[in-house]
């Protein structure tokens, strides 16, 4: 817990974040009929439309070019490489949630893929049956009983609840990619990872664009369902019909 607090106070964004959250909680009271899961809907919809423009003219076109131009083995290698850099922190979060067996697998994955898998370019561990897990600080907080605090939509980083925004700040602090030096190399790596993630979401674009009555609400509800599924490690208890 103190690690978390230290990380948060160390993060320059934390004070800004606290300010935004305060402003949001004031604005929430002002609007009339609110979705209990989305108390900051007005703010979120504004941010969402900002992000739609950024995505349409920058992120999506770049991701499409990357997806078309780069051969599959290179894309897979890059995805594996970034996946490998994340496995240690995933292991820490597994342990913090009391899943020590999972944590052992996460650390073994890191050791195997960094060596036999040649700096993580090949996911040998998965071939050996060591399954990759999805853990982060936001899930750890949830397992510790922290409520989600309401849904937020941020430009560029996208949907996060209040809890997951704090978790994301901690994740970024612990993220080895953000510590790469010189800064120019760090920036290229962060950008490459962003494009890789955006490219992996390209197949979902058409599903959402054609399937949603209200794209904002569709993405919000999909995000909340997916997080719930992650927190319960793929087996969420059934909700009332």
């Amino acid at each position: 817990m103190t690690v978390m607090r230290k990380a948060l106070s160390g993060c320059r964004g934390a004070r800004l974040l606290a300010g935004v959250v305060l402003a949001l909680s004031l604005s929430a009271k002002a609007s009339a009929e609110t979705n209990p899961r989305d108390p900051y809907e007005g703010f979120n919809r504004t941010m969402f439309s900002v992000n739609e423009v950024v995505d349409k003219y920058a992120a999506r076109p770049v991701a499409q070019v990357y997806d078309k131009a780069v051969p599959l083995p290179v894309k897979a290698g890059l995805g594996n490489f970034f996946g490998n850099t994340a496995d240690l922190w995933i292991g820490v979060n597994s342990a913090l949630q009391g899943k020590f067996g999972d944590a052992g697998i996460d650390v073994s994955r890191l050791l195997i893929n960094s060596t036999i898998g040649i700096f993580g370019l090949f996911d040998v561990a998965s071939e050996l049956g060591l399954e990759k897990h999805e853990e982060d600080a936001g899930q750890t907080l949830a397992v510790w009983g922290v409520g989600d605090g309401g849904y937020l939509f941020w430009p560029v980083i996208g949907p996060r609840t209040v809890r997951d925004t704090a978790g994301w700040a901690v994740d970024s602090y612990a993220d080895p990619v953000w510590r790469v030096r010189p800064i120019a190399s760090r920036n290229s790596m962060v950008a490459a990872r962003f494009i890789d993630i955006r490219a992996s979401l390209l197949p979902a674009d058409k599903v959402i664009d054609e399937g949603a009555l209200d794209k904002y609400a569709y993405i919000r509800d999909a995000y909340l369902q997916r997080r719930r599924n992650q927190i319960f490690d793929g087996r969420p208890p059934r909700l009332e019909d």
Partner: protein
Amino acid sequence: MNAMKKLIPFVFSLFVASVAWSQESPDVLVQQVSSEVLEIIRSDKDIQSGNTQKVIELVDKKVLPHFNFPHMTALAVGKDWKRASPQQQQQLTAEFKTLLVRTYANALTGYKNQKLVYKPFKMAAGETDVLVRSEVLQPGGKPVQIDYSLEKIDAGWKVYDMTVAGISLVTNYRDQFAQEVRSGGLDGLIATIAAKNKSLESGQGKADKK
């Protein structure tokens, strides 16, 4: 050659057994239908080059018979479903079916170069509501969990929900539908989905002409 002769009846008996199984076992049903559909999607050049209409026809023919659409629509509409008249329920089901088939077709064609694996499936005798779990493995990415909820009704096992990465393609509509009902009533919701389907259909027509 001799071995061949022995093998053929054996393979044939396996085939007969699998057909018989499909009527009883929900996991085998899901596996058969998915592998058949994915096989067609992978080998069809029109589909590979982005012909959504063809995937929709494929889903209509191969997948739809195994879906329980009234139940799916009831789940998507939520508590307003019970207030709907039988005729409204019928219209809602018809419009939602069209929308969901397109969503499902888009979800199917979005993935390339992947491998589908099924999780071990256990079912107690006499169970009528089960979850069949599978995973799509893709190079360089995290596995995507795909689960099907099935129920046993008189006509056999039917899918009534499916989730991709934990996101139900059915209940993800609930808040959007409730929002439409609040502003325009159930008829408003029906009109909105119908309008959405119409615009997608005409958009598709244009895209095909290109």
